[in-house]
């Protein structure tokens, strides 16, 4: 079992992993290849990967002209940023109270948090939709963000993390005359960065990809998030113009994939931490 000698087992393992990797990458390979093909070529030879005539520019122009991609991406960024900020600002003080203060309702809060973990947006969507409709706030960033401003999962995750912060650290800060808010901001948060980054990745991936809620509250293209925008694009694209469709897909998937590739270690750590704690 020496690590560096080449054995049949190792070769077999490597081949299996490579074959699997190729299968998993196949959709991306075909996406990139098809985004550069002209309509006629797509219909004639689907297995050749390199376009005979490079139609990238043409397809990208088409993709960009049908639906405003910059607006979609900007909406995605705004919505994800607002959601994440609200979640953190709301959850951190609450988790701190539950973990480190003499908070009588802490046990009761824990029950609420556990209950909340059970309820996805799909379950609360109908009453929220009716309420938002009555309040005439559909088609707005507020409608997209508000239901996610509270993340019981964030409370749960931060709670576990805060419990591990030594009490002495907090007592010392108190003796130095820091207020509780000051302690949260200057002692707790700096000590909880790993949990906060992990949660940031979890939250952004979840809300960047979410289709259900935007589909429910947004009918106006100006507020469409990337998944919803792509749905509009598909609807506008009658027939099978796969070249333009793949170009649009490429533009819309690229930001998150780029972020993932740049910070893949963080991503995996974050998913592991949020996954296992959840």
């Amino acid at each position, binding site marked *: 079992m020496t*690590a560096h000698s080449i054995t049949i087992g*190792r070769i077999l*393992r*490597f081949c299996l*992993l490579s074959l*699997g*990797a190729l299968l*998993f*990458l196949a*959709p*991306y390979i*075909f*996406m990139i290849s*098809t985004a550069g093909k002209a309509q006629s070529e797509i219909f004639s030879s*689907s*297995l050749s990967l390199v376009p005979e005539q490079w139609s990238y520019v043409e397809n990208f122009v088409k993709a960009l002209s049908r639906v405003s991609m910059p607006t979609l991406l900007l909406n995605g960024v705004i919505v994800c940023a607002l959601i994440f900020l609200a979640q953190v*600002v*709301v959850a951190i*003080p*609450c988790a701190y*109270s539950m973990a480190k*203060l003499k908070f009588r*309702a*802490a046990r009761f809060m824990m029950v609420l948090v556990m*209950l*909340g973990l*059970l309820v996805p947006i*799909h*379950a*609360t*969507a*109908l*009453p*929220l939709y*009716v309420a938002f409709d009555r309040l005439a706030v559909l088609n707005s960033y507020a409608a997209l963000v508000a239901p996610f*401003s*509270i993340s*019981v999962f964030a409370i749960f995750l931060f709670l576990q993390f805060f419990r591990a912060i030594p009490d002495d650290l907090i007592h010392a800060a108190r003796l130095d005359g820091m207020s*509780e808010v000051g302690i949260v901001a200057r002692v707790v948060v700096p000590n909880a960065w790993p949990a906060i980054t992990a949660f940031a990745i979890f939250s952004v*991936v979840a809300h960047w*990809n979410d*289709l*259900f809620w935007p589909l*429910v509250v947004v009918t106006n293209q100006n507020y469409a998030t*990337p*998944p919803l925008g792509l*749905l509009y694009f598909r609807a506008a694209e009658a027939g*099978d113009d796969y070249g333009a*469709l*793949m170009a649009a*897909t490429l533009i819309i*998937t690229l930001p998150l*994939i780029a972020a*993932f590739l740049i910070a893949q*270690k963080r*991503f*995996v750590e974050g*998913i*592991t931490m949020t996954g296992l704690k*959840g």
Partner: protein
Amino acid sequence: MANVATDMPILAADRREGRIAWLLAAPAITLLFLFILLPTLAVVVLGFTDFELGFGSFRFVGFENYAELIGDRTFRRSLRNTAVYTAIVTPVSIALALAIALLIEAETRGKVFFRTVYFLPAASLLVAMATVWQFLFHPTIGPINAFLAEFGIAGPNWLGASGTVLYGLAIIGIWQSVGFNMVLFLAGLTAIPRDLYAAAEVDGARSWLDRFRLVTWPMLGPTMLFVTTISIINSVKVFETVKTLTEGGPNKASEVLLFTIYQEGFVYLRVGYASAMTVVFLAILVVLMFLQYRVLDRKVHYA
């Protein structure tokens, strides 16, 4: 006497701390009530009404909605499809993820590369990648059927035929969820103490299979339970691919729970009826979580 004198300031300090705790938790409590508890309660209540959006009045109809659900062929179809989808995606995705995690863990070279590749689908926009899969599955110009044709196999009309549409969607679901499960398994595998393997070897566990059976498998218990629960829940929540690619078709062959709820509630605006469906959906989630806790209590005590 001295006690009273020193207790008083402590009590006052405690009370002050309690007040601050309430203040710090107040936003979270308010929003929790507003956006989670109240709507959940409302959905249960709405499930007993004939509320429709656009109509001013509504009345309580008792269990009428639920009675209608039992006879609703679309809903029953939808439940069955969701169950079939889950029954395919969960085991396959878990088995594949575990196999890949074991292979990656055993290999010293290229760990990061393979981990990145297999995780990539989990970090990609599902609606977008579903569109790519639609092209791959295309009956005439799709690469999958073109590939099958090389071997003389006439590929099916994957997403367009009621016999294969669920399998097509399941393939996408598996492709998308393997990476996530794999990352969790990798974390579980790294957490197993090396000396356990050495000990097992001393005790006569010579082959890889023995070591897997005696050490890896039992030590992975908690991870396995967690991955299983979350996989089932995610499969039950399948929506994006169905909405993007099939709209429940053809012939309701891919109607799944969340899509049916979406359709009834937000397209036909039958809020009362859709709420009853939502209650069923919630009940399924509750039962799944309850089962997880039960198993956690009884069996998995290695963590």
